[in-house]
């Protein structure tokens, strides 16, 4: 393509490239901004810009498959009588029934439970499919309170108070009319087919001082049994993590800007929030300064794709990660086998991001009963379990190579950065040097 234009002497503008031109033309034609899922698509400093220093002479590695490298994690023991004990630190991020089909929610529960980790509800409440198939279920408490029900609060294993998402820190939820089917509408007390608008702030508290009182109420309602997480979109993680801890959170979830399963305006996704890599050291610094690192757990999400990303998050100081987009892909989203169907709706396998539109041929991000038939929750659940196991084993391979008997024993000193940007953000030395940008040699 490019060659054809180049041979004709045509030059694409770096400023007004074809994507930009198309966006202007779309806005002019329709009068509405682009809404999509998929998280930030631009190139960002990411975990690929870090590498581990495996052991050799100065440190000794552990024998793979022989010598212990544990992966379990306990979340929320600070105040709750019943903290979560997970076998792997890879959890499933909050995604709503409504955004996802009931079958997809079931598959997430099946896959997560098979490997002993947790799954999370989303806007719109808890479904029986989800509770029934999830051994550990985190119940989200969101600004809209769609489907918010104290029975579900009591039925949950942990409660996650959501202030924001990495895709849109400061923005509210969004679900377009096509997905507000009778069941979704019923759960959310909305008219069928409306564009659901949800609030960006909680209706009955604002700020950490009031959040402390809200956490007190939820603890009272659930008799101090359940861990309370606080989830923030990464923007000012140093302050937000400190305030979440001051307000009483047992677990803090920090979601970076690559967080993809929240559908919102493209402009929001690409231009608000900071990369996950940049958020972790600041969140960890906040916890360390308060003396609660590892006592209040840090869960990191936003663009986590494999065991290497997991190990890097752990080394930077996270206690666990949450995956959303990667989990959907494991279930079967963007499957090349469905390429023809993706093309029919104007996309292609590997590119589909209109998860809000409800036309997903994979039957995952849809409420259409016909499309849902394309998705088998048992098969999907098995694929997710496979993926979670692979992620965990990959992280163990790295941890053993660094001589660690537990994933949590990975530390920043096991990492170096490949780019100055990543070195500055992660506060790690540039590979082959002892130079950490911004710090004296």
């Amino acid at each position: 393509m490019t060659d054809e234009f180049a041979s004709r002497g045509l030059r694409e503008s770096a400023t007004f490239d074809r994507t930009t031109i198309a966006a202007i033309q779309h806005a002019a034609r329709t009068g509405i901004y682009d809404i999509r899922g998929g998280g930030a698509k631009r190139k960002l400093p990411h975990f690929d810009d870090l590498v581990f220093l495996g052991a050799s002479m100065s440190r000794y590695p552990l024998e793979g498959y022989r010598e212990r490298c544990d992966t379990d994690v306990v979340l929320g023991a600070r105040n709750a009588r019943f903290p979560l004990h997970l076998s792997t630190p890879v959890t499933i991020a909050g995604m709503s029934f409504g955004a996802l089909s009931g079958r997809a929610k079931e598959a997430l529960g099946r896959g997560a439970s098979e490997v002993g980790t947790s799954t999370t509800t989303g806007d719109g409440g808890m479904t029986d499919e989800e509770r029934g198939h999830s051994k550990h279920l985190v119940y989200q408490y969101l600004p809209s309170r769609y489907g918010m029900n104290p029975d579900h609060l009591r039925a949950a294993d942990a409660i996650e108070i959501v202030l924001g998402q990495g895709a849109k820190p400061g923005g509210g939820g969004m679900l377009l009319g096509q997905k507000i089917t009778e069941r979704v509408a019923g759960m959310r007390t909305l008219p069928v087919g409306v564009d659901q608008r949800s609030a960006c702030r909680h209706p009955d508290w604002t700020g950490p001082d009031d959040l402390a009182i809200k956490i007190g109420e939820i603890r009272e309602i659930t008799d101090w049994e359940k861990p309370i997480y606080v989830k923030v979109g990464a923007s000012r993680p140093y302050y937000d993590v400190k305030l979440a801890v001051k307000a009483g959170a047992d677990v803090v979830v920090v979601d970076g800007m690559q967080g993809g399963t929240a559908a919102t305006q493209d402009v929001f996704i690409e231009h608000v929030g900071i990369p996950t890599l940049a958020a972790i050291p600041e969140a960890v610094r906040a916890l360390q300064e308060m003396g609660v690192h590892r006592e209040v757990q840090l869960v990191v999400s936003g663009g986590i794709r494999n065991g290497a990303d997991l190990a890097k998050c752990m080394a930077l100081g996270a206690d666990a990660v949450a995956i959303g987009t990667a989990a959907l892909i494991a279930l079967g989203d963007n499957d090349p086998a469905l390429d023809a169907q993706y093309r029919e709706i104007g996309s292609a396998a590997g590119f589909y991001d209109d998860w809000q539109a409800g036309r997903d041929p994979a039957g995952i991000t849809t409420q259409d009963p016909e499309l849902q038939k394309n998705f088998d929750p048992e098969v999907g659940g098995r694929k997710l379990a496979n993926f979670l196991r692979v992620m965990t084993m990959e992280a163990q391979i790295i941890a053993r190579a660094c001589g660690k008997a537990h994933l949590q024993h990975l530390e920043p000193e096991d990492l170096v950065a490949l780019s100055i940007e990543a070195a500055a953000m992660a506060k790690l030395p540039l590979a082959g040097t002892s130079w950490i940008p911004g710090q004296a040699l």
Partner: protein
Amino acid sequence: MGTLTEDVVQETVTEVDLSASSVRDLNAALHAEPEGSTAGYRVVHPEGKHSLAVGLNRPVTVTIDGHVGYYAAGMNQLATVEIDGNAGVGVAENMMSGTVLVHGDASQAAGATAHGGLLVVDGNAAARCGISMKGVDIVVGGNVGHMSGFMAQAGRLVVCGDAGDALGDSIYEARIYVKGTVKSLGADCVAKEMRPEHLDELTRLLEAAGRDDDPAAFTRYGSARTLYNFHVDNASAY
């Protein structure tokens, strides 16, 4: 039979003095009531404490003798909670069923996101009364503050006094009845015709709240439904 029942109820009234017991003690005792319990509780010296009588799910009766803090009777199911004083932020927030009576004023976000039951405030309710309400009935004897009924999805909000700015902004299918003046209506909220079924409904709600206001003196407000699906000409209302 009626007398006997009353006697039984009175025998089971438990007094909890919050100058001596903790909020945790109170809520734990209320949560420990067996299914179907109609026990009575009387709470004294509440002194503005938060989270009193929250998460109840038995048909018990709790009377609170004085002012309460945030989230009193939060997420109530089945219980009757009567507050003989003012209520702080978010009284009866996310109530599912039952009855909450406030004999004084209520602070902001009264009945926020509540799905069912009846909330009665004899005095005024502050800003955001009935915000995102999802089926609850709210009757306010006095005025309500700004942004009341914001994104109200279902249920009825009755205001016997005046309403503040931006009443019913972005309202869905909830119905709002106001006897006095409305300072301003929010986006997509309009005055609507009072049909006989609305007069009936309002009469029943006023009765349930123990009020003798004339239903005919009220105006009904609801959604113009212009924001239900995005249209470029309405963009400024978002």
